[in-house]
């Protein structure tokens, strides 16, 4: 059975890595994910895991080392944040294109400039089109649980696609929470052994990895890759159920919090969902039908399931922890609004940017979102489609 521990999100990720005990971890430090490889190095030095730790000179090299090791046939992991993740960008495409089930922990963080090391989703949203499976965690428990599940999802024969498990920088990565750590043996049994598909080191069956594909091949390979990514949706659901059976914490594609009959719905991802749940609880105590849809699987985006889950809503607010960067709204907003276009609901949908560069988002801010949703339903008018939470000065 598991035991309760009080550790940070980074330590949760590091312990998941210790229990997974992959063949290779390539590491380059970047705040706020640095404590992950640091803890892993300690575990290895203490003989608690026998992973080959490759210390490299950049995140680009870290991902390159992961790709090389994974092509050789190893089970491979790494961790990063922000500009490090951005420096990996080119290699992220290569990892997914080569269908190498690398698993990465991302302590999500703001991208410069201005320089900022605190939490937001600029990094993971920037890499949303790299063909990686993206799981977003609300707290340390989920950071731990998602990393373990990510191994099983990525390595599924129908998927064979790299996966990242993200959790908010500092809010989760550096905050100590109580969470449940499972037995080493139970985790080992849950993930099972990894059998690489075409290991380079198998000299009996020589294989070429990373060859070029001219115009008469590239398109077919990219669509074959897309199929693997799309297959991950069912596998995420299946592994989430298996995880529930093994450890008592079941996971789905998303989490519906008091959503069934909700009139006023917030859609969000990451640590802000904890705050939102508290606000939902207090609003429900006052008879206000508030609800939350927490995004767990962001890539592949389960648009149909999420649209179905939002049908009861009379007004929806989508929280993006990233600047919309000139789009009509943040990435979550665009996805969800697009998903709802094909469904009967014509509930008004608004978008907020919040928490950039570690800006606090408190219950009062979430409350103001529900207040706005209530007002929209009462008046039938949307005054602002896009707004900011806890920004100094009114937007727009």
């Amino acid at each position: 059975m598991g035991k309760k521990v009080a550790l940070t999100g980074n330590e949760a990720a590091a312990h998941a890595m210790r229990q997974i005990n992959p063949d290779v971890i390539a590491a380059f430090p970047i705040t706020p994910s640095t404590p992950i490889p640091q803890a892993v190095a300690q575990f290895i030095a203490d003989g608690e895991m026998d992973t080959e730790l490759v210390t490299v000179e950049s995140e680009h090299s870290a991902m390159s080392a992961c790709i090389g090791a994974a092509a050789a046939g190893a089970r491979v992991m790494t961790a990063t944040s922000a500009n490090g993740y951005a420096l990996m960008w080119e290699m992220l495409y290569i990892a997914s294109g080569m269908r190498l089930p690398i698993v990465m922990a991302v302590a999500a963080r703001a991208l410069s400039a201005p320089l900022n090391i605190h939490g937001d989703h600029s990094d993971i949203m920037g890499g949303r089109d790299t063909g990686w499976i993206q799981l977003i965690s609300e707290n340390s428990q989920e950071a731990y649980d998602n990393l373990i599940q990510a191994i099983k999802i990525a390595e599924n024969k129908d998927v064979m696609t790299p996966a990242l498990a993200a959790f908010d920088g500092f809010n989760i990565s550096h905050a100590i929470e109580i969470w449940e750590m499972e037995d080493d043996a139970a985790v080992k049994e849950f993930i099972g052994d990894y059998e690489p598909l075409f290991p380079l080191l198998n000299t009996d069956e020589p294989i070429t990895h990373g060859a070029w594909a001219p115009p008469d091949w590239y398109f077919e390979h990219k669509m074959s890759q897309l199929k693997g990514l799309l297959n991950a949706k069912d596998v995420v659901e299946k592994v989430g159920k298996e995880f529930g059976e093994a450890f008592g914490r079941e996971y789905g594609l998303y989490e519906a919090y008091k959503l069934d009959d909700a009139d006023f719905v917030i859609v969000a991802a990451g640590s802000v969902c904890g705050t939102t749940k508290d606000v939902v609880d207090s609003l429900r105590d006052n008879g206000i039908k508030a609800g939350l849809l927490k995004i767990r699987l962001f890539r592949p985006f389960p648009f149909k399931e999420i649209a179905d889950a939002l049908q009861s809503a009379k007004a929806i607010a989508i929280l993006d922890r990233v600047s919309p960067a000139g789009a009509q709204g943040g990435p979550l907003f665009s996805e969800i609004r697009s998903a709802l276009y094909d469904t009967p609901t014509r509930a008004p949908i608004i978008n907020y940017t919040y928490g950039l560069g570690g800006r606090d988002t408190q219950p009062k801010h979430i409350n103001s979102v529900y207040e706005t949703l209530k007002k929209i339903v009462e008046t039938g008018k949307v005054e602002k489609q896009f707004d900011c939470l806890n920004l100094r000065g009114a937007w727009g």
Partner: protein
Amino acid sequence: MAEKLLKWDEVLIGAAIKDPGNSKSYETGSWRVERPVWNPDTCIQCMFCWVYCPDSSILVDENGKMVGIDYDHCKGCGICVEQCPSKPKSLQMILEAQAKGKTEEELRKEVFSK
């Protein structure tokens, strides 16, 4: 390429290639603008061209002697001519357009008789 190309759901995962040495069937010779013409009469069999050829397009027999050029793969880069130490050079570049419809023997005469 006459064979039927595979559909998206038939290609090997990760664009991996299982059959080694298949680059032989990829004919890069069609990229060529100029081609080298070889003169066996003055060739000293130093194998410089063989060493430098980036496309392994210098054909060599079982005795290790150069016997010709693999025009299916030669991209016409001209390194062989550049490196050829014999005087006069035993390899010369000519335009593909000029070579069109002519046998190797005819080309040799044309290039090396001057």
